[in-house]
């Protein structure tokens, strides 16, 4: 073996010009994966270190729509816990003028506008826990006497809440043209805007997804009249206690089957953690794609390098080197260079988040804790090693088969050479290891597996595309002008780089096309193409006795109005088939419905737009034991079916619902859809509210909102447009992250393409010189090559468009559970982009080749 190292070292001394592409490709791919992993670790560390502050205590007991019960508070007092109660709900904020009337002034922005708000009521103990002393994600000052709370102008919470004061998000101030000291109405109570809430320590644990935050004193909440039975409110109590770590278990034992959700600081922001997990998975896979593209670069680089080294290898073989020794020497050299690339990538990936994190600090939900996180770096390096080996082994194995006698022949590496069986098997094992690592390292393994399958399929597709192009080119011989014929023939000649160039250009393009199509689809669905059937408003918390009044107000609106209302209860699923949900094994994509309060409705008749896939709807007038109709996707994810029992907790009471049928729901309509629809009967007698959707012309939306909230102050109107806008904002950030990583893939693809074209350039220059000698004009040579590159670009673009469409369909349909739209413009951009890229490459190549003077090449050697 030492002789292999000696020979390898001796040759490496002579330079490794051909292998620079290997170093660059690996550095880029490994760097991307390492950077994503490091940033994720930094964010997770941020979540962990601030967990207490983010949660607002050592423990949180979320009692859902049930007010924190006295027995719980008593038990906590017994256990020396400091407690703080919090309630959250959505509501409307309306501006009122000094006379106490809701402002209806026509001028300015205040003209009777309503703002959907995320209301949070806190007691005087809040916030129980202050932030750790390291600043927050938004660059604010270090934790201070106010416990990480930021109020502008500075004041204590007590002072702010005095005289029915509230703190509001600056957004409300700007949007409604309010000033400090102005009076506003929430529900049926009037409040004074005491100041702007600039920082809220437990904001991410109590998300404010749909509207800006309003903070009020718990004592003032009752006066709003919003706490009606069945209102969509969430109560929670946070606590700090010396015995907190063991209290979660004690609580569960002391208060069984209450349907509460108990969280500790590790689980402070499950939504954020989930979101970060998913984004990290997406980005890692995009990074992996660029590494895969880099793998093609590795294979190309090694192959070109070996072609140039073939003479040396043949000489070594003539001098008695075994095939094994030649293989070892080459492998050592390639892996030495690969290690260099991988190390560079790891270094880059480790450092990049520190720089990027500072720039992105406003976009990240928590302040990342930057540091050295070995795990993601090791993982990225492992991916790098596996990719390098998987892609280098095949060309290396061919090199080992170069016989000494090849020295005396023209073509040194015969085309049809196949590696030996053991090496082919080793290569297979490496690919399997790569897939294994990808799947094991991913949070969502099924998705990762799909990704691997898609990546393999894409590689096969491009290889098949290469074959097809060569076949068609062979059949099309003799078509077109002499120059075109030459170009077409170039595509299928022995040793033609057709498959190589297709793959090099296509893989990066496919990723980019997929990313662009996913972005485009998100954009179209959210912003541009609101379904025609989609309602304008959701009105929530309409009390039973308010339904008639609500109907009257809506119908009094001029113009066509569609209104639909259904009863709504808040329920949380506590057990499936008798197994508590904490212990139930459910699929990751169905787990969301088991977290927290969910909507539940009841209906006598089957809802419109649903399709029953198993079981049957209950008969009209049914009033027997409670039945439920369940969404098909959830039923599958939960592993339940017709006849099984789902136990739900409604307002603190457990209720067993037997599944009567499973139905498919068309969520696209954006209408009212409940995944659980119960039979009437017992539920209709429970306290509940109504949800209504109203569809009316856009110019009447403001008037309707005003009319409803004036007459029914406790009712909250949510404009669908605003919600979709908020969702669009989040998705745009995701899309930006995808674009950046997609850009890395394109960069890797371009590098690979440059490498692939450069590898063939010597041959091309020689060919150009001979053609010129035979009387070809520069124009003819240029036309020939542009024909060749143009066809390659067109085919690469077409395949990339197809792969991108399929991948984006997969993501939209299976991951985001939404529909996919054909976006011809994006596809045309992909195809013309591919064509343009290839033509630029072709033009550059041919120009360089045409500049080469013929005489030196033609002289006798």
């Amino acid at each position: 073996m030492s002789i292999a190292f000696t020979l390898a070292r001796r040759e490496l001394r002579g330079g490794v010009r051909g292998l620079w592409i290997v170093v660059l490709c690996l550095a880029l791919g490994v760097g991307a994966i390492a950077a994503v992993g490091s940033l994720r670790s930094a964010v997770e560390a941020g979540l962990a270190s601030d967990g207490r502050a983010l949660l607002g205590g050592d423990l949180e007991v979320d009692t859902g729509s049930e007010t924190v019960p006295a027995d719980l508070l008593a038990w906590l007092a017994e256990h020396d816990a400091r407690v703080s109660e919090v309630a959250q709900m959505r509501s409307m904020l309306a501006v009122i003028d000094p006379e106490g009337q809701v402002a209806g002034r026509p001028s300015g922005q205040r003209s009777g506008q309503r703002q959907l708000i995320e209301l949070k009521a806190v007691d005087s103990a809040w916030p129980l826990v202050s932030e750790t002393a390291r600043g927050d994600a938004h660059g604010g000052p270090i934790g201070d006497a106010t416990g990480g709370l930021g109020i502008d102008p500075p004041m204590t919470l007590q002072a702010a809440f005095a005289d029915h004061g509230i703190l509001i998000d600056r957004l409300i101030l700007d949007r409604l043209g309010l000033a400090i000291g102005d009076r506003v109405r929430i529900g049926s109570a009037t409040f004074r805007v005491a100041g702007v809430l600039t920082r809220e320590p437990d904001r991410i644990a109590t998300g404010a997804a749909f509207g800006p935050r309003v903070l009020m004193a718990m004592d003032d909440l009752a006066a709003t009249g919003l706490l009606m039975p069945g209102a969509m409110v969430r109560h929670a109590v946070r606590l700090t206690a010396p015995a907190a770590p063991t209290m979660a278990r004690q609580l569960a034992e002391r208060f069984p089957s209450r349907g509460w959700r108990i969280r500790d600081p590790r689980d402070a922001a499950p939504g954020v953690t989930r979101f970060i997990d998913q984004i990290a998975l997406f980005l890692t896979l995009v990074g992996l794609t660029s590494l895969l593209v880099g793998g093609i670069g590795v294979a190309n680089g090694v192959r070109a390098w070996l072609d140039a080294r073939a003479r040396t290898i043949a000489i070594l073989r003539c001098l008695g080197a075994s095939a094994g020794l030649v293989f070892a020497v080459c492998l050592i050299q390639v892996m030495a260079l690969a290690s260099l690339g991988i190390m560079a990538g790891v270094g880059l990936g480790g450092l990049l988040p520190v720089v990027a994190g500072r720039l992105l600090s406003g976009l990240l939900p928590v302040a990342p804790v930057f540091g050295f996180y070995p795990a993601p770096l090791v993982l990225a390096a492992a991916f790098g090693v596996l990719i390098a080996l998987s892609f280098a082994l095949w060309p290396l194995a061919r090199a080992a088969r170069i016989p000494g006698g090849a020295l005396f022949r023209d073509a040194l590496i015969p085309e049809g050479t196949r590696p030996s069986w053991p090496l082919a098997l080793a290569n297979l094992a490496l690919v399997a290891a790569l897939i294994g690592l990808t799947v094991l390292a991913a949070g969502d393994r099924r998705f990762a597996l799909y990704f691997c399958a898609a990546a393999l399929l894409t590689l096969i597709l491009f290889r098949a595309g290469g074959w097809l192009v060569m076949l068609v080119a062979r059949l099309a011989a003799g078509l077109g002008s002499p120059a075109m014929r030459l170009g077409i023939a170039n595509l299928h000649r022995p040793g033609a780089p057709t498959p190589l160039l297709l793959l090099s250009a296509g893989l990066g393009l496919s990723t980019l096309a997929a990313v662009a199509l996913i972005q485009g689809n998100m954009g179209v669905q959210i912003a541009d193409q609101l379904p025609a059937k989609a309602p304008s408003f959701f009105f929530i918390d309409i009390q039973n006795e308010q339904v008639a009044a609500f109907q009257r107000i809506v119908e009094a609106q001029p113009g066509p109005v569609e209104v639909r209302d259904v009863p709504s209860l808040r329920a949380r699923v506590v057990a499936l088939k008798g197994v508590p949900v904490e212990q139930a094994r459910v699929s990751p994509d169905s787990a969301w419905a088991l977290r927290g309060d969910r909507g539940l409705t009841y209906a006598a008749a089957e809802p419109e737009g649903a399709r029953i896939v198993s079981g049957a709807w209950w008969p009209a007038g049914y009033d027997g034991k409670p039945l439920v109709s369940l969404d098909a996707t959830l039923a599958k994810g939960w592993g339940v079916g017709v006849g099984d029992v789902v136990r739900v907790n409604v307002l603190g009471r457990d209720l067993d619902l037997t599944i009567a049928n499973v139905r498919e729901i068309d969520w696209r309509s954006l209408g009212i859809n409940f995944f659980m629809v119960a039979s009437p009967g017992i539920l209709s007698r429970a306290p509940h509210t109504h949800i209504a959707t109203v569809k009316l012309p856009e110019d009447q939306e403001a008037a309707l909102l005003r009319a409803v909230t004036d007459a029914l102050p406790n009712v909250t109107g949510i404009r669908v447009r605003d919600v979709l806008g908020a969702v669009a904002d989040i998705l745009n950030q995701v899309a930006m992250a995808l674009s950046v990583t997609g850009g890395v893939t394109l960069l890797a693809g371009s590098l690979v393409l440059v490498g692939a074209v450069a590898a063939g350039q010597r041959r091309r220059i020689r060919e150009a010189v001979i053609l010129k000698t035979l009387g070809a004009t520069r124009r003819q040579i240029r036309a020939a090559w542009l024909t060749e590159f143009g066809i390659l670009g067109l085919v690469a673009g077409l395949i990339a468009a197809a792969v991108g469409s399929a991948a984006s369909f997969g993501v939209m349909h299976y991951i985001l559970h939404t529909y996919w739209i054909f976006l011809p413009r994006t596809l045309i951009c992909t195809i013309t982009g591919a064509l343009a890229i290839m033509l630029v490459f072709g033009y550059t190549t041919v120009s360089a080749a045409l500049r080469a003077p013929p005489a030196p090449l033609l002289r006798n050697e």
Partner: protein
Amino acid sequence: MDLTPHALSAPLVRVRGLSLTVPSAAGPVDILRGIDLDIDKGQAVGLVGPSGSGKTSLLMVLAGLERASAGTVMLDGQMVTGLTEDALARLRRTHIGIVFQAFHLIPTMTALENVAVPLELASIRDAAAKARAALDSVGLSHRLTHLPGQLSGGEQQRVALARAVAAEPALLLADEPTGNLDHATGAQVIELLFSLRARIGATLLLITHDRDLAARCDRQVHMSDGRLTDADLASSEAGTCGASPGARHGPVVS
């Protein structure tokens, strides 16, 4: 292209005061120093001289593959020096055939494709049929679909020969065509070269180290240090070249 009335009677190749100087790290190097040379239509000229004397450079300049520093080259009464690169390429297509020592076949093209390329570039009809005929004339009709790498050295040179004569050029330039071949194979190639030249009536400039081979030409020209030393060294055995076939070709027209 300019076609002068004396073209028919003038020599096919007329070189006057031709110099080639190339820059190098050690200063400019004079490769050709004021060459004057006339080659009549149908004549076979053997160009001999030691290595580095400038033979190949002269051939390159004649073929328009290298630009002269000074002096003029006329082909069939037409000024070659000063033509654009593409005009030179068009001129080569139909009027000049070149055979190299290293064959210079395109390795990824079959024998037939290699021969057909210049014909196709010149948009000559039936390029493939003509190429097939040319390969047949060098005895390679059974090797049409072989790649250069699958042919022996002699066969490759025969393909190159077929390629050079396929368009029936007025001027054949051959640079040590047997240099890479063994004696017997070389002799075969030379026989073919001379017989094909005779058949198409081309003028030949043959670079060779081999005095005997040069002696088979109508005329021998000796070159040394970038100069023609004893030009017009008439060959006594001119007859073996096959009688000069006479001016079958019309004037050089682009």
